[in-house]
């Protein structure tokens, strides 16, 4: 029964929200770890993907495209708050 569950905050919804955040954190960390490994694996097989990524990221022409991408992402992410 949900109302009998342990909650550290007065409002159990905050505990649930924290649970979601921590679960997302686990996913983000796992992905970061995998990406690092992927870069290392590519480097070992002869592709300096880390260097290429830095090179691509520093391209000034990329900024505008990334900004548009970011805005779409934020709209999806935060849009429900004002719907």
């Amino acid at each position, binding site marked *: 029964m949900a109302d009998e*569950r*342990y*909650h*550290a905050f007065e409002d159990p919804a905050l505990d649930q929200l*924290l649970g979601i955040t*921590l679960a997302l954190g*686990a996913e983000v960390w*796992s992905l970061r770890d*995998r990406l690092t490994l992927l870069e290392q694996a590519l480097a070992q097989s002869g592709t300096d993907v880390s260097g290429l990524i830095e090179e691509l990221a520093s391209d000034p022409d990329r900024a505008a495209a990334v900004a548009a991408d970011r805005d779409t992402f934020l709209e999806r992410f935060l849009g429900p708050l004002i719907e």
Partner: protein
Amino acid sequence: MPPLPPVTQQQAARFDYLEGLRLYNYTRHIPEVLERYEATVGSRRPRTMATAGKRIKAQTLYQFAAAIQHQAQVMGWASAAESLADHGDELDALLAKVPKKPKGRLVLDEVLPLPGYYTENDSAGLDDIHLAPGGYWRESLVGPIYERGGALYRTAWRLGYSASPPGALVAFAAGAPSGDYKRILDLGCSFGGNTMSFRVAYPDADEIVGIDLSAPALRWAHLSAEERGLAITYQQGDATEMAHEDSSFDMVTGFLFAHEVTSVVLDQVLGEAFRVLRPGGHIRFLDVPPYSALEPEAAFLQSFDNDGNGEKFWNEFLLSDFKAALERAGFVDAVDGPLDYDQPGFTGTAALMRTAEFREENRWCTSADKPEG
């Protein structure tokens, strides 16, 4: 420890994350909570755990820390079970494997009734012991699950549950007064870590017996002991009503067991322990310290486990006078205090929510003797 299936990168990353989350809580949040507490109390220090707790609980940071601690535990068990889910058949086969020349024995009682306090949960499983789904008894893979999830609690998941805490248990076993201990009984031995330490400390003992309610836990204990070449009898039974004869043991012990039962059950267990111990025999327990041994704010932090970690009888035990319970059962010369042993190589014991640093009182030894004749 017995071989566990390898973890994938995703599973390893998840364990690393959860371990880091706990350590962050212990090394950053809790010290800050205590610092803020100190700043607010000034010279008017709360004298009771309840008053200290009221002040600490009011801190939003404490609420976050407690919530993180709870969530990390729930996520830890889920991650441990998930990392083993695809390997059920091979683990079942491992558990069913009979060593060719076993050093010890496994004696299961298929029809042993499990007591209500042990199996019942009234909150959708969230008050299972340590929040592990199914507690110690329902899940056939509870051994491997603890090997990963329990070790995660001790912030040492790569070492495995049976490998930690190093040193402490052998020191506890060897710390008994010098005597001729030929037969030793370990009450509520679960995965057998304490039982194995007694075998290491007393290699010449005739028989060392570990008793527990859980068949799956005993299977894992047996497997672990055989892996280590340690001769131990693991026996399924209820410590409130044992089959052993009167005066048949020289020493009785229990590790992190006394806080897992109600005080009524504990009195029954101590009565049985008195019966099976020979006159002049020794009884010793290692557990967490009673609240009375701690400063009010540390006692409050320690009380987290009662509600936040599925430890239903934690407060009942830690508020009680264990030495008096031993004396009620007939034992004499009851003494208690922190276990004296060399600090282990890692600080992340199960000592928290009670601060990250190693503190000797986090392992609390209570012992007594059965009178001669």
